[in-house]
């Protein structure tokens, strides 16, 4: 794909993004396709706003960029949310709250991570109390890079996520369910004795829906 004569830099990325758009769902029945389509039209967002990126959520939700026209609207509580937006660096202390919120969300649920801090630690890479790779602790569905990403980038990320939901691709919540032991081991490594009590997540191992 990244061949110089064909395209260059952001053109290739653009092409990769657009290549997904035309692609049709493989082997999905009519009902699944309908369900996926309904789901992608309505995303309730829980914005976890402790990182600096949270400042970009406000123009996104209000009149200037108006995310409601994509069916994206703020949710009051984790229980009603479909998408958890992590807006940047996470201290170990906040990570614990994020995990608790994530586990309270009802499936299907998705995580969008903003900024380089969630990918590799960003400018906090040698900090003593922030985590570096968010994906080791909760499953991230979509990274939106930048420090910090503009609302346009957020819209791009949201529409890419909607596209994936429409195609019925397995979301991160299934990964979390399948690899719960790995995620919990990673979490235990940073929390130590401060691990959330087992009853908060034991229903994951039982395969409840």
């Amino acid at each position, binding site marked *: 794909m990244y061949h110089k004569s064909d395209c260059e830099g952001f053109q290739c990325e653009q092409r990769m993004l657009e290549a997904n758009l035309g692609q049709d769902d493989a082997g999905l029945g009519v009902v699944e396709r309908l*369900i996926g389509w*309904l*789901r992608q*039209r*309505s995303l*309730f967002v829980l914005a976890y706003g402790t990182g600096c990126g949270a400042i970009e959520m406000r123009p996104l939700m*209000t*009149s200037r960029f*108006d995310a*409601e*026209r994509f*069916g994206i*609207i703020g949710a*009051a*509580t*984790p*229980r*009603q*949310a*479909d998408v958890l937006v992590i807006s940047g660096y996470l201290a170990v202390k906040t990570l614990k709250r994020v995990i608790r919120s994530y586990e309270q*969300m*009802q*499936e*299907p649920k998705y995580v969008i991570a903003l900024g380089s801090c969630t990918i590799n630690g960003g400018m906090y890479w040698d900090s003593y109390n922030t985590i570096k790779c968010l994906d080791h602790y909760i499953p991230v569905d979509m990274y939106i890079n930048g420090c910090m990403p503009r609302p346009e980038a957020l819209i791009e990320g949201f529409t890419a996520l909607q596209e994936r939901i429409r195609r019925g691709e397995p979301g991160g919540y299934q990964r979390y369910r399948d690899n719960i032991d790995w995620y919990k081991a990673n979490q235990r490594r940073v929390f130590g004795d401060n691990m959330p009590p087992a009853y908060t997540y034991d*229903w994951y191992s039982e395969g*409840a*829906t």
Partner: protein
Amino acid sequence: MHVLLDSLAMIALCYVMGFLFQGFYRQFNARLQRRWGPSIWQNLYDNMKFLLKSETLIHGPMFFFGPMIIAAGAITTLLFVPFLKDSDWLQGVSTHGNLILIIYLLVVGPLGNALAVGSSGNPFGVMGVTRGLTRLMGLEVPFFLGLALVMLQHETTSVHAIMAAQDGIAHWNLITNPIAFAVILLPFIASQNASPFDVVGAPVEVYAGPRVEFGGRLLGVLMTQNMMMTIAKLVLVVDLFLGGASNVLELIAKAFALFLLTTAISAAFPRLKTEQTVDFFWKVPLGLAVLGVVLNVWLI
């Protein structure tokens, strides 16, 4: 058989009208705020999505039965409201009931809410319910006095008879009894849970109020009943004050006109505090209602 088909048709019509009206409401608000707003089908998408989600919360059986009680209350209410006059269709079981029964059924919703939220034990939910019951104290008396005024005027409790008495625009209760309409309008907005009286769900203030613990399917059920209840109440007021409707298009037009009036009012005024709401209801609509009763009973 006819009753069954008819009831299903009423529920379906109510649901479709419900999500279209609420979709319009969201779009209307968006345009007022100079943004594009969601599509008019947005409420259908939201509702379907919630009905297709998982539900893993366990707060005891009452938490599960609460939304069912509320939904059953909403469906029963709408079946007792005749949608059309001089027609066999869209009547539900309204010939077996009357306005007083409908008044009773309107209270089932808040009660079911209180039961479900009480068992979840979430402080925000309990706060929302407390606010709701306080507001109910304010809005019930003028609302029912307004309905009583209409019953007094026609000397009957049957919605059918009241509809039949209003033939022609000059005989609409809106024209012949404007005081009753003025009395009922603001409590009606409050019972639709619209601004300026939206103290119960109060976005941002108490999170989602009574709904704070609900997510997934139960929230979907709550949304469905909310949409249907909105339409049932609108149709009731259309029946009582705008002379009912003789076909579906007329019904939709009249209900929409009323809906436009209430949305315009609620878009223009910001939210009141709970105690301000109660104060207001005990002063203005109740004062008007007492005046109306005096006029009706002793002077006319």
